[in-house]
C-alpha cells in the first residue's frame, strides 16, 4: 500500500500538469479579451494596451505559459484578472459551500439508495422491486433544471416550509441536496440492486446461510461487501463531479460554490481563475479516486495495490 501511495503521489504532478496545460491553451484559444471585460466600453485603446502589458497578456503565449508554470511550482495561482484578489483565496472562499452540498447530496443518495436496493433485491419482481425501479427511472429522467424549480415551487412557495435559495443555514441546504442527490440515488439504487442480485446465489452466501447466520448478517456482512465494488466506483465518479461543481444546481439555488465561480471565470475570460478552478477540480477527482481505492481495499481485502 505504501508503494501504491507513493506511486499515486508521483502521478499527481503529471496529471495536474496535463490538466493545467490543456486548460491554459484552450482558454487562450477561445475568442474574447479579458482586458475588454475588465476595462469596459469607456476605456481608451492606450489604457487597454497598458493594462494588457501590466498583466503580461501582451507576451507570447509560451512565455505566459512558462510564467504560469513557474507560479504554480511556487504554489502561487496568481491574481484574478477581474477581481484583483488571490485566486487561491477566491477558491478557498467557495470550497466549503461546494463540499457541504456535495457531501449532503452523497449522504442523501446513500441513505435513499441502499435501503431501496436492498428491498428491491430481497423482493425481486414484487411491488417493492418495481417501486424501486420506478423511483430509479424517475430520478434518472428528471433533469436538475426542472427538478430544482419544481421542488422550490412545492416546498418553498406552496407549502412555505423551506427557503427558496441562498446559503444561510441548514434549511437552505435541503432543496439543492435533494436536487443533486435524487439523480445520484437513482443510479446507485440500480447498480446496487443488480450487484446484490448477482451475488445472491453465490456459494459463499449459501454457505453463510447454511451456517445458520441471520439474514441481516448474510446481507450486510457477506452480500453487501461483495456487491459494493461497482457501487464504490460509481459513487466516486459521482462525488467527484459534485466536487467539481454542480453548475446548474448552484445557479438555480444561488449556491456560492466552485461551479458558479468557474462559469463566471470562463465568461469573463479570467485566465488565472479558470486555471485555478480547473486545477482544484482535477485535484478533487484525484482525491476522490484515491479515497475510492482505499474503500475498494476495505470492501475486499483480496485487492492489493503492491506489485
Amino acid at each position, binding site marked *: 500500500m505504501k508503494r501504491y501511495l507513493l506511486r499515486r503521489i508521483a502521478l499527481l504532478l503529471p496529471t495536474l500538469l496535463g490538466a493545467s496545460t490543456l486548460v491554459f491553451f484552450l482558454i487562450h484559444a477561445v475568442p474574447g*479579451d479579458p482586458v475588454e471585460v475588465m476595462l469596459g466600453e469607456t476605456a481608451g485603446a492606450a*489604457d487597454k494596451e497598458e493594462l494588457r502589458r501590466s498583466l503580461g497578456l501582451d507576451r507570447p503565449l509560451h512565455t505566459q505559459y512558462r510564467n504560469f508554470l513557474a507560479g504554480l511550482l511556487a504554489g502561487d495561482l496568481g491574481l484574478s484578472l477581474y*477581481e*484583483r484578489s488571490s485566486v487561491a483565496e477566491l477558491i478557498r472562499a467557495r470550497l466549503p459551500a461546494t463540499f457541504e452540498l456535495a457531501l449532503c447530496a452523497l449522504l442523501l443518495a446513500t*441513505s435513499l439508495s441502499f435501503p431501496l436496493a436492498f428491498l428491491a433485491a430481497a423482493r425481486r419482481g414484487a411491488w417493492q422491486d418495481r417501486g424501486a425501479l420506478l423511483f430509479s427511472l424517475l430520478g434518472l429522467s428528471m433533469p436538475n433544471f426542472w427538478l430544482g424549480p419544481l421542488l422550490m415551487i412545492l416546498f418553498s*412557495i406552496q407549502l412555505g*416550509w*423551506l427557503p*427558496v435559495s441562498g446559503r444561510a443555514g441548514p434549511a437552505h441546504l435541503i432543496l439543492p441536496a435533494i436536487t443533486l442527490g435524487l439523480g445520484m440515488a437513482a443510479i446507485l439504487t440500480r447498480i446496487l440492486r443488480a450487484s446484490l442480485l448477482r451475488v445472491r446465489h453465490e456459494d459463499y452466501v449459501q454457505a453463510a446461510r447454511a451456517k445458520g447466520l441471520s*439474514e441481516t448478517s448474510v446481507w450486510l456482512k457477506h452480500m453487501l461487501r461483495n456487491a459494493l465494488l461497482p457501487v464504490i466506483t460509481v459513487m466516486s465518479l459521482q462525488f467527484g463531479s459534485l466536487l467539481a461543481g454542480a453548475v446548474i444546481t448552484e445557479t438555480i439555488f444561488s449556491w456560492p460554490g466552485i461551479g458558479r465561480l468557474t462559469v463566471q471565470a470562463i465568461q469573463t475570460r479570467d485566465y488565472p481563475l479558470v486555471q485555478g478552478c480547473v486545477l482544484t477540480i482535477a485535484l478533487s477527482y484525484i482525491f476522490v479516486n484515491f479515497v475510492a481505492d482505499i474503500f475498494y481495499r476495505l470492501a475486499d481485502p483480496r485487492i492489493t495495490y503492491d506489485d
Partner: protein
Amino acid sequence: MFKTNSRFAVVYIWFLAFFSGCRVFPATDHPPGYLVAGIESQPLNLDPRFATDANSVRVGGLIYNSLLRAGANGQLGMELAEHWGMTDEWTYVFELRRDVKFHDGRPLTARDVRHTYESILDPRNRSPKRALLKPLEAVEVLTPHRVRFRLSAPHAPFVEQFTLGIVPANTTNGPSSSRPPPAGSGPFIFASSDPGEKVVLKANPSYWDGAPKVAGLVFKIVPDAMVRVLEFKHGSIDFLQNDIEPDMLPWLRNTTAASVDTRQGTTFQYIGINLSHPILRHRNVRQAIAHAIDRAQIIRHLLKDLGTPASGLLSPINWAYEGAVDSWPHDPERAKRLLDEAGFADPDGDGPRPRFELSFKTTNIDLRRRIAEAFKEQLKAVGIELEIRGYEWGTFYSDVKKGNFHLFSLAWVGVMDPDVYFQIFHSRSIPPHGDNRGRYANPALDRLLERGRRAVDTDERRAIYGEVQKIVARELPYIPLWWVKNVTVQQPALRGFVPYPDGDLISLKNVSFSSSPGGRPPS
C-alpha cells in the same frame, strides 16, 4: 428480513428527519429591519474609481456621493456641490457642502475631491475611467470647500464626469475586490460581502440629507431570473429592479400583491450593421430592414410591453432628444420596393429563394434568441434570409468588437450626454479607438460631432445634436428598435421608492415598510 440494528436505525432516522425538513424553518438571512433587494450577479468592485459593471455602479451609488447626480427626471442636479459654475469654457468651480462627513467621521473636503480624480488619472492605478478624464488638465484646491477643474480644451460632455463617487484622500490606491471598499459619504455604509451570496449595507444614521428609513439593505445575489421572482413571491426578496423576464410579469401581477411599476428608461436596443458589407452598405437595404421589422408586435408579445419603439439613441427624457426624425414603421411592401430599387430583386417572386442571405449574431439568452427568431420571420416576408447565430457572451462581444458580423443586436445602457454619438458614429471611433463597430464614416456627421463637443451653450448643443439625430435616423448605421422600460417590483408594504431613468437606486434611502396590517414585520 432484518433484525433491528438499533444503532443503524437511530442514525438513519435522524438523517432522514433532518432531510425531510418537516419542521426545519427557513433561517432569516438578513438582520431585522433590512430591505432585501435581488440582483443577478456579484458587484465586482464597489470603489467608484474602478466600478464598471451595472451592479457595482448601482450599489456603489448608495455608498458614495458625487459632485453632481442625475435626478428622477434624468437631469443633472447638485449633490455634494452647493454651487457650481464655469468661469470660462474650460474651467469649472465647485463650492462643496460643509455638512458632509465620510462614514469614518472625517469631513469631506476639496482635498478628497482632488485625490479621487487624481487617483483615477494615475496610470499606476489602471482605472477603467482614466480615458474619460482625458480632457482634465488639473484639479486645484482653492479652499477646503472650493475646488477648481481645469480642462485642456472646451469639452462640454465632461460635465458627466462630475457624477463620479468621491473617496477619502487617504484611500489606498489600486483595484482589488479582496479589500473592503473605501469609506463613502452616502446614505448607506458598506457592512459586508459574502462572495456569490450577498452584499450588506447598513444605514448611515448621520447622513447629511437625512438618515435612511430602513436599518440597511441586503443585496441578495440570485443568478436565475425565475428564482428571483420565486424569492419575491416567497417574501424573501422585497425589491427587484429590472433583470426580470418579461414573461414573469403577468404571473407576478396575477399571483402576488406586488406593486409593479414600469417607466421610460434610457437603455436603447438596436440592430448593429456592418457597413463594409457589400449588401448592407446600401442605404436602401438598411431602410428596407428597418421597414420589415415589426417592433410593435415584438414589444407586445415578447417584451410584454416593457419597451417603447425607439427613433434613436436619445430617449424622449433626454434634454437633447429630437423627435422630428425619419421613422421606419412596419411596412413590408415599402421594404420590398426599397430592396428592388437597391438592385436586389426577388429571384422567384413568392417562391422559396431569397433575395440574399445575412447572418444575425446574438447571445444565447433565451429572450434574445426568441427576438432573433421574430426578426428572421419578419425579414423572410420581404425576401431576406437571416441565419441566426447565438453565442456565449464573451465570444459574441469579441466578434462585435472585431467587426466580425453582418447584423447583431445589443443595447446601450445609461445614455446621458449626446456626445455618445461621437463614440459610436465618428469615423475616428472605429475600434480600438471607440465603438463605431459598423465602420460608419460620414464627414458631415463628423464635423457636427466635433462641434457638439466644443460647444458649451446648451441651446447650441441641442441644435447640433438635433441635426445629428436627423442624419443618423436617415442613414441608419444602426436600426433603432426600442427603449427598454425600467421595471420595479416591490412588496406591497414598501413605500417611498422613486424609480430613476438610469436605474439609480438612491431613493432606497427614502423607502420604509408600512405599518399597515399588510406591512412586513421588521425581522
